């Protein structure tokens, strides 16, 4: 009897960057030379295939070798490791323990609950048959065959699914608005314009399992009653675009898209529209303007896109993750979905966990999980076991949550109650080495540069907020700056036209609320407690600790450090450019910065 051998190589953007393509080729070569056939019906058959993002990109290239259902995951697979894996494991049947994924991987992987990402690391995203094999397109078929549009909407309403793009609007209700509109044409848009820095949830779904999004769109289109759909996706996601286009082509060939879907006389097709890199185009009215060929600028609501959207027609916009969830809800039942999460936030949420955390990557957890479990459980705690300071959720428009609130639950309401947002799922962990004023400044730099310029509070207000923050970090802060900062931040939130301006000051307000002492230290004491703000730092060499090894003097790029061998060195503050080189190089902790 032949053994069932399967090897899957992670080929998301992270995997490819780590050399997955070469690893995959090396596997083919090694398998061939070991006499293992990668074709069907061979005696020694091995199914070698690519899979989408597995989430733990820091340990790429990740490879799963599965023999008769027993799976071993290898991490950080490099070309020179492939031969041993093939010879010892695939041929010899003995897993190579030293290359196998360790405790971090299992901590990271096993504590998650994968729904949207459940097939991302399993199936070949470029093969529609692989998707069909795991039950793909059955949900759409079932909807078209057995449910009326209203039944479909009711199912989604029952599941309690809320929009995953950030605002958390109930998806079923949105669809109902769309279905009730009478118009000669309606549109469905899938928003894949993921613009938050450090966020790659939607990219990974489209790269890892594009068909699940297409299937979700077919279901949504049927429920709303539209024949035309768009996927608005960033041009900076070439792999996602390529796999999406391929998936659309395959779906059309199969008759899953087109004039007669599943032979049921239903018409629906999807166009791909590439975004040109404007953050604001994630806002739905700006996104619509962009698809129409206009400059991506938002407009006031009402009227909402469900009434007057793309080309003036009723338009429903759902995020990638939302649409992927739709497929699983139909496949596994609204009750199953509603059993996950909290009372008001159902299901799971995908987060991009980054920053000063041991295990960074893409995670999916049930709604309502405490932040602490994510950071210390899945994330494995803080890098170098330093002290946790805050976690920033919700992308550049989110807020910073301090240690005292680490037991906050991850759901829409709880996050809002502590001054942050769910957003699309960015999660940046900060430690004691991060200056909170500088963090607020960093996010404001992003949002003010991405403002479209249409409304005054966002265009000029965020700029002035950034300037105040910059002055504070440069030690030029004044006593009443915090009053001005807070008042202006609130006015910008209150008076801006779209979600960008209405949330851009969140990082300021939340850091002011929880880390006001750091602001005061910058303004009153002219000191950066975290030692980040250059202008406020002074580098000195501690006489008792300096051994006179001359390392600091040798690395100093401006020759600001002088001293004889084996004697204490000194820094000329007039010359010092605060580049931190001496601090980094000193082995005796003799350089002091404060």
């Amino acid at each position, binding site marked *: 009897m032949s053994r069932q051998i399967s090897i899957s190589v992670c080929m998301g953007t992270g995997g490819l960057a780590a050399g997955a393509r070469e690893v995959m080729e090396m596997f083919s070569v090694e398998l061939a030379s070991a006499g293992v056939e990668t074709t069907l019906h061979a005696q020694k058959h091995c199914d070698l295939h690519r899979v989408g993002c597995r989430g733990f990109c820091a340990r790429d290239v990740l490879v799963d070798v599965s023999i008769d259902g027993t799976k071993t995951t290898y991490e950080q697979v490099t070309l020179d490791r492939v031969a041993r894996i093939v010879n010892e494991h695939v041929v010899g049947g003995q897993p190579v323990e030293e290359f196998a994924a360790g405790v971090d991987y299992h901590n990271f992987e096993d504590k998650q609950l994968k729904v949207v990402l459940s097939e991302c690391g399993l199936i070949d995203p470029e093969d529609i048959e692989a998707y069909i094999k795991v039950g793909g397109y059955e949900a759409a078929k079932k909807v078209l065959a057995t449910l009326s549009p209203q039944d479909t909407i009711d199912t989604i309403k029952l599941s309690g699914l809320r929009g995953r793009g950030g605002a958390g609007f109930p998806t079923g209700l949105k669809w109902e608005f769309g279905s009730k509109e009478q118009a000669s044409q309606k549109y469905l848009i899938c928003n894949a314009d993921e613009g938050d820095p450090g966020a790659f949830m939607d990219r990974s779904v489209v790269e890892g399992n594009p068909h699940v999004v297409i299937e979700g769109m077919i279901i949504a289109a049927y429920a709303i009653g539209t024949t035309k759909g768009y996927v608005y996706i960033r041009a900076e996601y070439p792999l996602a675009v390529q796999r999406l286009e391929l998936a659309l082509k395959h779906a059309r060939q199969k008759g899953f898209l087109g004039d007669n879907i599943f032979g049921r006389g239903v018409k629906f097709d999807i166009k791909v529209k590439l975004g040109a890199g404007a953050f604001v185009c994630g806002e739905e009215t700006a996104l619509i303007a962009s698809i129409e060929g206009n400059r991506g600028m938002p407009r006031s609501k009402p009227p909402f896109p469900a009434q007057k959207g793309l080309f003036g027609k009723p338009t429903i916009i759902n995020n990638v993750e939302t649409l992927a969830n739709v497929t699983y809800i139909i496949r596994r039942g609204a009750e199953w979905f509603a059993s996950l999460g909290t009372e008001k936030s159902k299901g799971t949420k995908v987060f991009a966990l980054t920053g000063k955390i041991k295990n960074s990557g893409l995670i999916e957890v049930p709604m309502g999980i405490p932040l602490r479990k994510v950071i210390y459980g899945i994330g494995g705690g803080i890098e170098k076991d330093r002290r946790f300071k805050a976690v920033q959720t919700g992308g550049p428009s989110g807020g910073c949550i301090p240690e005292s609130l680490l037991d906050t639950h991850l759901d829409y309401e709880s996050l809002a109650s502590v001054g942050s947002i769910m957003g699309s799922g960015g999660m940046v962990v900060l430690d004691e080495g991060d200056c909170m004023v500088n963090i607020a400044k960093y996010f404001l730099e992003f949002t003010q540069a991405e*403002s479209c310029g249409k409304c005054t*509070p966002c265009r*000029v207000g965020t700029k002035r907020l950034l*300037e105040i923050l910059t002055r504070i970090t440069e030690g030029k802060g004044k006593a009443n700056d915090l009053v001005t900062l807070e008042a202006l931040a609130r006015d910008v939130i209150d*008076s801006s036209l779209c979600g960008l301006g209405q949330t851009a000051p969140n990082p300021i307000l939340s850091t002011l609320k929880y880390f006001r002492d750091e602001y005061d230290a910058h303004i009153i004491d002219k000191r950066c407690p975290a030692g980040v703000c250059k202008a406020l730092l002074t580098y000195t060499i501690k006489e008792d600790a300096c051994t006179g090894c001359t390392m600091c003097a040798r690395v100093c790029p401006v020759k600001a450090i002088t001293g004889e061998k084996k004697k204490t060195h000194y820094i000329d503050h007039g010359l010092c450019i605060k580049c931190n080189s001496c601090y980094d190089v000193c082995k005796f902790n003799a350089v002091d910065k404060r």
Partner: protein
Amino acid sequence: MTTAIAQDTITLTINGKTVTAASGKTILQVCRDSGIYVPTLCYDERLEAYGGCRLCLVEVKGQGRPLSSCTTPIREGMEVTTDSDRITRLRKTVLELLLSNHPNDCMLCEKAGACTLQELVYMYGVRYDNYYGEMWNLPKKDDNPFISYDPNKCVLCGRCVNICQNVVMKGTIDMTGRGFYSKPDTAFGKPLTPDICVFCGQCVSACPVGALTEKQARGKGRVGSVERVRTTCTYCGTGCNFYLNVNKGKIVKVTSDYAAPVNKGNLCVKGRFGYDFIQHPDRITKPLIRREGVTDTSPEVLKDPMAVFREAEWDEALDLVASKFMELKNKYGPDSVGGFSSSRCTNEENYLFAKWVRVALNTNNVDNCARV
């Protein structure tokens, strides 16, 4: 019919006062119709509401966030407040932010006295120095004979762009750049040349501040020193109305009349900038009759027109024309003469002219240059 009208009427309250208005109107329109003041910078009745300046924000009961009244349609039972403390504070902040990137240049500004920003800053008692930081220091664009653009004074209300894109349908300018550095400009900042711009000056008419001004009017008199004379354009039969701005008997510029029934404040290049002929020294202001015995009218001789022609009074000139027409008609028959009218005449003038040719000259030989 009466029920249909009743359905189309919406009752709402504004500042506690009950107001009835036709459905489909925005809060701002209803406020204006009811004499309730709401400040705006980006609103232009010729354009679709933009919602960008955020000065027209109002509170609507039940809505957590203030709404821009220019874009929000009225609903039955809506309770609107236009002047709460919160709204006033937000308006002041917006004005302060605008001022923080606006040159303190009213003394030299063409628009002083007619500038909406100046008026609002005065009305709300806003100071210059509440927010400070980077200010634009961009070169003034003065690359054409008609339109002068000082981007440093721009408040990004978008009216110039919207009128160029959606009324003139020319698309010469659009918003460029992002964030603090976005501004209306031509593609790649190219100069305004006839191949991209028709110089209708609609952008100038839409600008609420001194960013876009009439180049020819520079230094010739601001709103306080001019008298506005409403007149009808003489260039074509459309009959556009506008105001001639006259300073000490000299026409200095043309401004829009938003109430004009035909053009509603819109004008073309001729109406807006083609007024210099009116007081041109070469303009013929009296009828000229050719002097007796002069037969040579070659260009050489015409260099001194008064050697060929003499000035006459209207009665004499018209008598001469009438007698010549009668002479030709009697000698060669009515179809030997005809009339050719100008498209610069009004419709009424053209009608009268056609009538005169047909009735007085007894011929159908009548036409108009607009048909050629």
